[in-house]
């Protein structure tokens, strides 16, 4: 039987798994360094943030290039953000803490940066479970409203990154810049549409 021809979306789906395979290879080759648990956890956190940025980049690319049909990719990248963030969370709970809930509870309670990560995760989680077409249909207008909270998730995620920092500012600065550009683009679009909308409203004149 001949394999079905792969669509670009299928190829993209496979490529998004490369970071995970790469990590698996590094585990296998014992290349994660002296603090392997932390290294793995950090790499999963980094990939969650990268996929979040990619997800946010789809709409600007679509607007600027007039390229149609990118929404499937946005969906895919969004689900991968959820996928890597879930692994990041599981790595924290299981790999690092061995599911020792009393220690986890104290650690979360005393580490404010984790609250930010958790808040971001809750948003991403809600977006992921409302991704199926059926959910979208059922939710009607509120779906779009809910899915716009990804903007808050990105701000929470970058704050989470900054807040756990021990010294090196360069990397989170880069991501902050990327996220500001991606959110700034939306702000510009919003301002522009408001301005145009404003022009269409008949202005009341004083006699």
């Amino acid at each position, binding site marked *: 039987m001949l394999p079905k021809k792969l669509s670009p979306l299928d190829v993209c789906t496979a490529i998004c798994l490369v970071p995970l395979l790469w990590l698996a290879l590094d585990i296998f080759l014992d290349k994660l360094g*002296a*603090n392997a*648990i932390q290294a793995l956890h950090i790499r999963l956190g980094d990939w969650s943030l990268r996929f979040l940025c990619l997800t946010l980049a789809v709409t600007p690319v679509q607007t600027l290039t007039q390229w149609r049909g990118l929404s499937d990719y946005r969906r895919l990248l969004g689900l991968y953000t959820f996928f890597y963030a879930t692994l990041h969370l599981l790595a924290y709970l299981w790999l690092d*803490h061995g599911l*020792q809930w009393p*220690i986890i509870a104290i650690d979360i309670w*005393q*580490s*404010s940066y984790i609250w930010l990560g958790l808040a971001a995760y809750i948003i991403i989680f809600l977006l992921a479970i409302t991704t199926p077409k059926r959910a979208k249909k059922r939710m009607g207008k509120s779906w779009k409203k809910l899915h716009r909270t990804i903007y808050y998730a990105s701000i929470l995620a970058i704050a989470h990154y900054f807040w756990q920092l021990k010294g090196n500012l360069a990397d989170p600065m880069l991501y902050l810049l990327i996220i500001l550009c991606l959110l700034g683009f939306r702000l510009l679009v919003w301002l522009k549409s408001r301005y145009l909308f404003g022009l269409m409203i008949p202005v009341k004149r004083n006699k």
Partner: protein
Amino acid sequence: MIIKTQKVIPASEITDPHLFLQRRKVVKALLAAPLAYAGIHSGLAAGQTTPGNGLASHYQTDSTITPANLVKNYNNYYEFSLTKEQPASLAQSLRIDPWTIEITGEVEKPLRLDLDDLLKLQTVQEYVYRFRCVEAWSMVVPWLGFPLASLLKTAKPLSSAQFVKFTSIHQPEAMPLQANNTMLEWPYVEGLRIDEAFHPLTLLATGMYGERLSKQNGAPIRLVVPWKYGFKSIKAVVKIELLKKAPLTTWNKFAPHDYGFYANVNPAVPHPRWSQASERPLGSHFFTPRRKTELFNGYGEQVAALYRTMDLSHFF
């Protein structure tokens, strides 16, 4: 416990004055190693014990020794890099020979000593200590060194000496962050109260794992204060000053709300942004829970008396 053993070591093996200066000491140091590796107490140097002060237990650790390659490849050494991996290679450009140490300030007899001469006066021994970083990772390291107190005594501290200030090397040619003047104020400065400095657990280390200290771990000589967060254990020390007043230390100056002068390991006092209740020992396997951090890093029996009257959450 004093170890007396007549193990003959060929003279050809006794090569490194930084570690072993006399055959007698070699025997002691080498012997201490296997005992310590087995998790049993090892010996104390002759002549420096005050019986009954519980000193023997400072060799005791409930964890196994961290593999040397991990300790040598996971370093916070901001003079070289903000990453933990790069100091291992970058630090190799540090020049450490010759090395002079100065002891000044409130002392009767200020000293300026070449490291080799200084070591001739000291008994180098192995001390297996837990080491807890403020970033919540930890390790167990067999240091080779001698009590700071025995060096300070040679300078005859005056009664006016209340604090000790330590200064690291300033060598911008080798240290990129010193050359760019970035991150912290250089050179790195740390400090102890005089009773902390004279505490028998407080060491100056010149080696680890039976070898000379590697450069990324603070060669040729560093402080080791096992009940405090790692940043107190300043590396590559060139100057020791006895002072009337507490010195302003590097991290304390950089972020006074995050890093106090005392920096005693304390699971009950979280860092403003993260918990200190647990720690990740280097080299742990996946799915191993973290280790619960102990007050004074488990050395409370020896050091708690130093802080009896202090509110530890205020003097963090």
